[in-house]
């Protein structure tokens, strides 16, 4: 498969870019932040997303979706990365939709996927418990109770947790923290008794929550996939999320770089355009190369996911690790090259730095994925 966009994919990109840049430039996020919007995103815009088929982009057509692939999902998140639009797309349309589609029973699919496609249901994966992303360390307890289960424990950095209708919760039904065996995924209604949701205002002004589960009672049909055997399913879901976030980081990096190059071409210091200074030229050129290489790695990962999610782990680790270091570098150079102006809230550059930090942490940072690659390669 060639690492270039097909004609259809280019059209998708253009149409997503058109909608997003028109309706949700960075000022959209700024407004939501400054007005302390209670949901933190625009429902109206999400409805447009649904109407254009983006909400159900990964959902099979039989459930009202567009039946597209991860490459297409990445095209959309890349465009989202350019304007930092807060949107349920990642949590609901990429991660949750993939979880349901890959792990769900026929009944679960029929119940939830059409609602995701038409924009009426928001869902999210609740995975992290500690400070760092360590899926196997999952220790939220799910104990058998009658025919069902009782959930107790807490989750952090649950994306869109304060507005989601449905949580997909990683829990431990057996084994000790750290083991692959004994993980189970549960579908939990956000209004269920015992669920306590605390919206957390994050550095990037995007949406997340901490969730506590206090003896939350679930029926047996709340299990997504198989009891104790969710590790493989979870790997796949997380890798899909990682691919999408990596693509968002490419969009973010590219945008912040584009803005920085523009600044270099217009700002004068010491009687010259600062873009004439060779030291800055070389750093800009290095950053350009970094971004292009990362872009290719991310496309490669999305293609690998489209080909076979189970075999995409290494490509995804490379992509997410590279996306992390590249985005970090892009926003750092962006702020530095904008000088004092880049430090002011009034300029947009800071928003990119903040969002990059969250994207870096989401589903494992560069260090995590670099470590994964080392382990996979046996050293």
């Amino acid at each position, binding site marked *: 498969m060639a690492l270039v966009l097909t004609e259809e994919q280019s059209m998708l990109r253009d149409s997503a870019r058109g909608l997003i840049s028109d309706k949700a430039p960075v000022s959209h996020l700024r407004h939501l932040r400054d007005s302390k919007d209670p949901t933190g995103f625009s429902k109206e815009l999400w409805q447009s997303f649904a109407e254009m088929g983006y909400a159900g982009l990964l959902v099979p057509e039989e459930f009202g979706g567009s039946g597209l692939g991860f490459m297409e999902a990445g095209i959309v998140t890349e465009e989202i990365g350019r304007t930092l639009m807060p949107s349920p797309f990642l949590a609901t349309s990429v991660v949750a939709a993939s979880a349901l589609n890959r792990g769900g029973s026929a009944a679960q699919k029929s119940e939830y996927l059409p609602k995701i496609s038409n924009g009426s249901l928001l869902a999210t994966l609740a995975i*992290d418990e500690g*400070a760092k992303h360590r899926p196997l360390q999952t220790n939220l307890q799910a104990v058998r109770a009658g025919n069902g289960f009782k959930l107790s424990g807490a989750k952090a950095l649950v994306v869109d947790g304060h507005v989601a209708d449905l949580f997909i919760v990683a829990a431990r039904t057996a084994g000790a923290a750290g083991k692959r065996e004994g993980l189970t995924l549960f579908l939990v209604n956000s209004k269920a008794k015992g669920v306590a949701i605390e919206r957390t*205002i*994050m550095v990037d002004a995007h949406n997340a929550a901490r969730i506590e589960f206090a003896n939350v009672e679930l029926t047996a049909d709340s299990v997504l996939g198989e009891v104790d055997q969710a590790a493989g399913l979870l790997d796949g879901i997380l890798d899909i999320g990682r691919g999408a976030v990596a693509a968002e980081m490419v969009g973010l990096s590219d945008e912040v770089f584009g803005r920085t190059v523009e600044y270099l071409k217009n700002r004068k210091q010491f009687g010259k355009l600062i873009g004439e*200074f060779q030291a800055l030229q070389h750093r800009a050129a290095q950053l350009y190369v970094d971004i292009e290489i990362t872009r290719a790695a991310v496309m490669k990962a999305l293609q690998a996911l489209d080909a076979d999610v189970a075999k995409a782990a290494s490509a995804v680790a490379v992509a997410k690790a590279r996306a992390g270091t590249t985005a970090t570098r892009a926003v750092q150079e962006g702020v*530095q090259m904008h000088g004092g102006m880049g430090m002011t809230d009034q300029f947009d550059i800071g928003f990119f730095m903040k969002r990059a930090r969250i994207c870096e942490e989401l589903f494992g940072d560069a260090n995590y994925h670099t470590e994964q690659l080392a382990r996979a390669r046996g050293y």
Partner: protein
Amino acid sequence: MSDSEAADLETFRSETRAWLEANCPPEMRKPATSDADVFWGGRNAKFSSEPQRIWFERMRDKGWTVPDWPKEYGGGGLSVAEHKVLRAEMAKMGARPPLSSFGIWMLGPALLKYGNDAQKKEHLPKIAAGEIRWCQGYSEPNAGSDLASLQTRAESDGDDFVITGSKIWTSYANYADWIFCLVRTDPTAKKHDGISFILFDMTSKGVTTKPILLISGYSPFCETFFDGVRVPKSHVVGTVNRGWDVAKYLLQHERAMISGMGERGVGRPLGQIAADSVGTDALGRLDDAMLRGQIASFDVDEAALAACAERAVDLAKAGQAHPAFSSAMKYYGTELNKRRYEILMSAGGVDALEWESERSRQGARPRAWLRTKANSIEGGTSEVMLGIVAKRILDLPGA
């Protein structure tokens, strides 16, 4: 140092230690953790606690808000060696500085070198006594790193200058009583030649200030506007149109100060701070091998920089220091401090990403992280520092 000088110094050390033990309130023997812990002085100054007041007044009365200034200006009249002893004894005890002030750090040294007698007598004692709080008017919105391209103009009108323009990044301008300011007194001269260094009261007619919101949130920085501010010509420090000399002298002070930021140990080793949130592996090592490597490399560089900072002081004392070396230190120290905070963010993970919660002390860590990004911009960008090293130390052509 002769034997008798050494003995005198030891006497000074034991007396100082005893005095500090007797006079520094216990509450003042730990690091400041909030803005309220820091006493800045000034007309509207309030003490945040009784111990803060006591400590300040006792130190002021000994002249030890400015230990190495001459006694006639309210200083302690200490020699370089004595001053070092005092600092060491204070550090040993964890004693806070009794007074923080741009007057002490910046204007004072400039006045001591360039001020006339009247100016020294007028301003230095009030700085030492914390009566007047100063701010610095250097940067301008369009000048950026090219400080000397400043546009704020001072037009001659009889015995006065009339000042019009604006400054940016004026720290605490909204709290300051007076400003020391660079203004253009000769718009026809070459860029560096028509600048003067002038002092005036911030309550003068025509001065307004506006705080700047940073990416890290509220900041001490302000924009400051001058609309026909009338200032007597006698308030110029040094020669009219030679203000750039004063400015350069001060910038070196500022750089030496900022470069210090990267050197401070934070108490517990970074790696242990990280282990608290990240955990350890079966071998007892930080359970993030890549982060562990980054921290260890940082620790090596930080320890090396600390040695270099110490050496810079020793070289200065020995008269062997290169005058531009503070630029080298400023560059490395600020870049290192940015690395420290990148590591702290990585170590903190999810917990370091909350912005407003009580749990996160209103996002203390991410705000501090974002704030460090300015370290390599303020007081001369890293690029400008490297240019100075290339030109003044390495003597590279056309630098």
